[in-house]
């Protein structure tokens, strides 16, 4: 994998859930790419489809009622959606690994921490039990768990939230994956532990030349840790850019509204800026641009209310889905 070559490329991914109440279009026409060695953040609020996107990448979407209905996921040159389940299993945990938000429920409470790491190792690597245990202890050391020789025989409930998350990270990187998907890895943790975990991830990334797909709702984390960002809203990507440009000059009204409304240290105003209205429900998405009811421009605009803007490349590797974003109308380049 050459430096900054594309490791993962997602094209027009759509995942729907077929429920009794109707079809929930959780992810619609999502396209982005992750370069090797870089951190890509997928940011959005609850229900925007970011977690479902991650699960779709790993093909872990529960089959009834969910289904990937279209799209192409190219990872290390292969289309993941065309692989058999056996081949996919060989990739999961091995080339692509995932860590989740709640370490308590993601770790099995009846097995020791060491057992679980060893299981992850032995699933993908041909190692004897004793060598796997040695490697597990080494992994615990790499994730900065103090006294790994003793901790390896502890159970998840004996550890704090931060420790458990480190164990999850150890399990995930034990096979040195090329891509690590982190689904809200620090949301359940205290702020001081959060910083430690994010530092650890950055270190491991550098050490193993790993790409990270970071899913979060915290714009601060994105600003500090990500290289590239995609902002998701109501199952679609609203804006795609490298991190610096996004925060310096957000193009989509949703991104602009978000950035203005997040409470920040040093804010001295009497009232916070807000985005009016609420996030739409997947069964009742608005027509046209999904953001239009809450958009200062779109709520009065006929075109925004009826025709949905697709994601188009605008300049310097940026893409946006908004009729009124600068450069949008001129461009006819559908971002891949």
């Amino acid at each position, binding site marked *: 994998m050459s430096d900054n070559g594309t490791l993962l490329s997602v094209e027009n991914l759509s995942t729907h859930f077929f*429920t*009794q*109440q109707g079809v929930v279009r959780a992810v619609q026409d999502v396209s982005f790419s992750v370069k090797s060695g870089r951190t890509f953040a997928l940011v959005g609020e609850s229900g925007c489809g970011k977690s479902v996107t991650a699960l779709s990448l790993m093909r872990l979407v529960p089959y009834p*009622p969910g289904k990937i209905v279209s799209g192409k996921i190219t990872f290390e040159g292969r289309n993941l959606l065309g692989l058999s389940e056996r081949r996919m299993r060989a990739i999961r945990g091995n080339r692509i690994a995932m860590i989740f938000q709640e370490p308590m429920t993601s770790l099995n409470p009846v097995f020791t921490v060491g057992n679980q790491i060893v299981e992850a190792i032995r699933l993908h690597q041909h190692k004897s039990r004793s060598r796997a245990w040695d490697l597990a202890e080494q992994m615990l050391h790499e994730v900065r768990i103090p006294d790994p020789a003793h901790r390896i025989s502890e159970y998840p409930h004996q550890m704090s939230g931060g420790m458990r998350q480190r164990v999850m990270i150890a399990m995930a990187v034990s096979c040195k994956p090329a891509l690590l998907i982190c689904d809200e890895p620090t949301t359940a943790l205290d702020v001081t532990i959060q910083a430690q975990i994010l530092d650890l991830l950055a270190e491991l990334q550098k050490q193993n030349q790993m790409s990270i797909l970071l899913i979060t709702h915290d714009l601060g984390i994105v600003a500090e840790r990500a290289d590239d960002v995609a902002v998701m809203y109501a199952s679609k990507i609203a804006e795609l850019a490298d991190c610096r440009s996004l925060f310096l000059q957000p193009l989509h009204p949703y991104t602009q509204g978000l950035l203005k409304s997040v409470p920040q240290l040093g804010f001295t105003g009497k009232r916070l800026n807000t985005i009016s209205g609420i996030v739409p429900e997947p069964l009742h998405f608005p027509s046209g641009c999904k953001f239009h009811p809450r958009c200062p421009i779109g709520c009065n605009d006929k075109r925004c209310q009826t025709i949905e803007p697709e994601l188009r490349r605008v300049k310097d590797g940026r893409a946006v889905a908004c009729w009124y974003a600068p450069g949008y109308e001129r461009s006819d380049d559908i971002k891949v």
Partner: protein
Amino acid sequence: MKAPKGVSLWRDGMRRLFHRRLAVVCLGIIVIYFLLVAFIYVVELFNWRIGPTLWAEPTGPSYQPPGSENIFGTDIFGLSVLRKTLYGAKISITVALFASIISIAIGVPLGAIAGYFRGIVDDVIVWLYSTLSSIPYILLILAFAVVLRDKTIAGQKLTGITSVYLAIGLTGWVGICRLIRGEVIKHKEHEYVLAAKSYGCTNKRIIFRHLLPNVFHIVIIVFSLRFVSFIHAEIILSFLGLGEADRPSWGAMINDARIELARGVWWQMVAATVAVFFISLALNIFGDALRDSLDPKLKVQ
């Protein structure tokens, strides 16, 4: 009030329940049984003078096999097996119904109190039902039935039937008490209970207004599943001869079959067994379907 009505969790659960065809079919079977029993009560009411003899008139020769005259055949006295089966349904379902009501009336409050107050109250109640449930069920029911048999309550002599359902009800509350206790302990920790305390709700109000409605779906589910075991309990008691001696019941029919089978008379046994089988199956499947539909956590969100 022009405010639109919302969709409560109940309505949502019911809606999901009725989408399952199998559950609806089973409900239909259960309803048929209940209607039959109601019908028999009505008939008895109108024929109160000749009442119980509905089944007591011989309709054919002794041990006539099933045929055109008697669809299920006849027993040793020439009594129609069909009528005996129907009457047996009345007994079994009535007993199970009353027993269920008694066990819910005892088990739910005790479970709620134990789960809510914990401490020594909980210890006492848990001790009580642990002891009861350690004694083999059959022996316990037998003991109650025998003891209650010839007693009188409020001047009324206890008939066999009454002693049966009292016995079953007084021993059957354990399961539901345990369940309710567990659920109350779980739900007590929810923030809405804390919120209720914080604005001054009394304990009584919290239990009745907040906790019980949230665990009540368990009662419904358990009701339908326990109903089956109460029917079976009644059959066992009748089989063993405790119960109404002079009225037909499924248990007595099966008891008779012990001798009859040696003589090649199979129709009484089959009739009673098939009758029990269908109601049990229907109740079990329906109970499962209820649990799947009413469990708020299984909502597809």
